[in-house]
């Protein structure tokens, strides 16, 4: 009913403030990506998700600059230190700008231990865009500019760990590692999936059969135990970097099957289409037909599938590293950071070490929201 009454009408015309006539025009002449964008914009949650993701990507790119300290810098004066609170007003209610209180170490006679406590007489003002610890941006550019530092004393917004390392800085560095594993893993599964699905769908026949059976087989192995077994097979002597790449490849190699299936399905349905036939008559090579004519027609679906497979990558890395089968120190990832809170006792004593968990959850949530919005928008003419 609704279908006959509302034949594919101007999506987003109101948002664009167009009159019905021009917007109809715009609708019919819009490129596929414009249509998808208009539709995507209507998903408020997906928009929020994209903003969150943008922030994560920004952190991933500029973590050295955003973090006040390096991932391995230790502060021996503040071991297992609590997160310091940010203040604007001092004890007397006087506005001081953004600052943290200093910390002094007191001796607790009951427990016979040194306990760091807030020293309300000392204010450390947060200074923005100042020099601090030197670092190499992306391992290339030597600089010491940080988003914020305190000039004397220290600032640990998320507290410190057992070696006095800044959890805030480490979480930002962990963001880079965990997300980059996601990106590289997704890229691997993209390339493998596209290739296998492409071969399967375009040539058909024996190859298709073989690849389909292979996919069925891989899908019948439960992911987590397989990941665990493969990760456990990595030699202990390997360098952290090598482990990093291998773990990424393991994650990527198991998730390509979904994409391969999608690509194959689309190719098969498209093989018979007129425009492919026309291209073939015009003498285009197989490869050219696939890349130039068929791929653009279902690129949107591929992008959606890739977005949706991101969370699995992130969760895979986090889980493996958490139980000690994945990445290891000195590599810092969310999973590695969470190793510090493997049991309740640890969380009970140092709850701030659990903060990276929030990053995991928020990033996965954001990817799911964006993925849902994109899935809906990928079919721009549907309702």
């Amino acid at each position, binding site marked *: 009913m609704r279908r006959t009454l509302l034949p594919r009408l101007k999506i987003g015309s109101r948002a664009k403030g167009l009159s019905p006539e021009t917007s109809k025009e715009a609708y019919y002449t819009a490129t596929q990506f414009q249509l998808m964008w208009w539709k995507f914009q209507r998903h408020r949650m997906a928009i929020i998700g994209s903003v969150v993701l943008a922030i994560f990507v920004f952190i991933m790119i500029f973590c050295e600059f955003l973090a006040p300290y390096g991932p391995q810098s230790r502060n021996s004066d503040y071991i297992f230190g609590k997160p310091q609170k940010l203040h604007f007003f001092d004890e007397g209610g006087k506005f001081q700008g953004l600052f943290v209180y200093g910390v002094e170490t007191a001796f607790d006679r009951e427990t016979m231990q040194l306990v760091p406590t807030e020293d309300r007489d000392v204010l450390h003002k947060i200074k923005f865009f100042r020099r601090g610890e030197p670092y190499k941006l992306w391992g290339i550019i030597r600089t010491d500019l940080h988003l914020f530092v305190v000039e004397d004393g220290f600032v640990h917004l998320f507290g410190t760990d057992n070696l006095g390392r800044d959890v805030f800085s480490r979480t930002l560095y962990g963001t880079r590692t965990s997300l980059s594993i996601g990106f590289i893993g997704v890229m691997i599964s993209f390339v493998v999936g596209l290739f296998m699905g492409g071969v399967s769908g375009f040539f058909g026949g024996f190859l298709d059969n073989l690849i389909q059976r292979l996919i069925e087989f891989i899908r019948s*192995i*439960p992911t*987590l*135990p397989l990941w*665990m077994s493969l990760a*456990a*097979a990595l030699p202990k002597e390997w360098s952290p970097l090598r482990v990093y790449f291998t773990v990424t490849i393991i994650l990527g190699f198991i998730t390509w099957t979904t994409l391969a299936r999608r690509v194959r399905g689309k190719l098969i349905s498209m093989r018979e289409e007129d425009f492919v036939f026309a291209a073939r008559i015009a003498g285009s090579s197989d490869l050219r037909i696939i890349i130039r004519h068929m791929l653009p027609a279902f690129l949107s679906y591929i992008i959606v599938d890739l977005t949706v497979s991101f969370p699995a990558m992130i969760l895979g890395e986090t889980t493996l590293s958490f139980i000690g089968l994945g990445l290891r120190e000195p590599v810092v990832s969310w999973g590695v950071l969470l190793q510090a809170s493997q049991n*309740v006792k640890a*969380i009970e004593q140092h709850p701030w070490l659990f903060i990276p968990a929030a990053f995991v959850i928020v990033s*996965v949530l954001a990817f799911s929201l964006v993925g849902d919005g994109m899935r809906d928008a990928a079919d721009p003419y549907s309702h």
Partner: protein
Amino acid sequence: MARFIFQRTLTMLLMLFLLSLVVFLVLELPPGDFAERYVHDLRQSGAQVTAEQVQLYRHMLGLDRPWYLRYLNWMSGILTRFDFGWSLTYRMPVTQVIGDRLVFTVLLSVVTIALSYIIAIPLGIFSAMRQYSIGDYTFTVLGYLGMATPAFLFALILLYISVIYFNTSAGGIFSVEFQNQPWSWAKLVDFLKHMWMPVVVLGTSGAASTIRTMRATMLDEKNQLYVTVARAKGVPERKLIWKYPVRAALNPVVSTIGWELATIVSGSPITATVLSLPDIGPMFLKALLNQDIYLSGTILLIYSALTIIGTFLSDILLAVLDPRIRLTGGTQ
């Protein structure tokens, strides 16, 4: 239909066979073997072990034979004597090591899935019928959160909350005082007090996706023409909803029960470790780390077999529950 089931059974058996091979190969991947690791540990603790002794030990365990012979040996043991090999760390037959834990794992998963369906299906229907209501939004948000939170983190969060706010002992399945007691009413209560957490943790993600699927299919189905026809027929609204769109929406949800079960079982090792459950998960992790190859191999085989059998069940259910597939003999 019979032919369909027969075909699926054959495929399943072939898959199981291939899987056992792959499982074995994967576990053969790491360099070194149990003997080496064992000797390494011995040396660490100060014992003098000669290379000859290592060789002897290796021979004793049968680790010096080529992998295919060991595989064939393992397989024939499983097929003829239901003998899954010898656990090198526990120094016991694998079947004995796993036994109770496997029963516990399966029971826990079944209870979890039953509860998650009982809760998620009505919530999904509710969300769809009251689309855009506060309840719908709440369940949608909870659903997203449930899917975004990895189970082991969720387990840690719940443990933390129960320790901090309820001051209960956490993890395990019994309190210390009941550990070695015979079953009694008090012990049962204590058991239930502990069990809610693993059930919630393992069930949440599945329940969240069930709510979403149920809601989405309901929304789709309730605008179908046949529902309008039923309404035009004067069938009372409540009866109409339960008879038509709910029936259609239940189909994909109920048919995937096999997959869900397999997902829960194979997704549980980390959670079980965090919650220190007497499940096969923690044992699997330990076996992997110790290169206790028959133990980890058997557990990996169990996980895979459950997945394959779950898929098989779901395929059959899908066919049985949908008259369109059931009556055309499942030629899809």
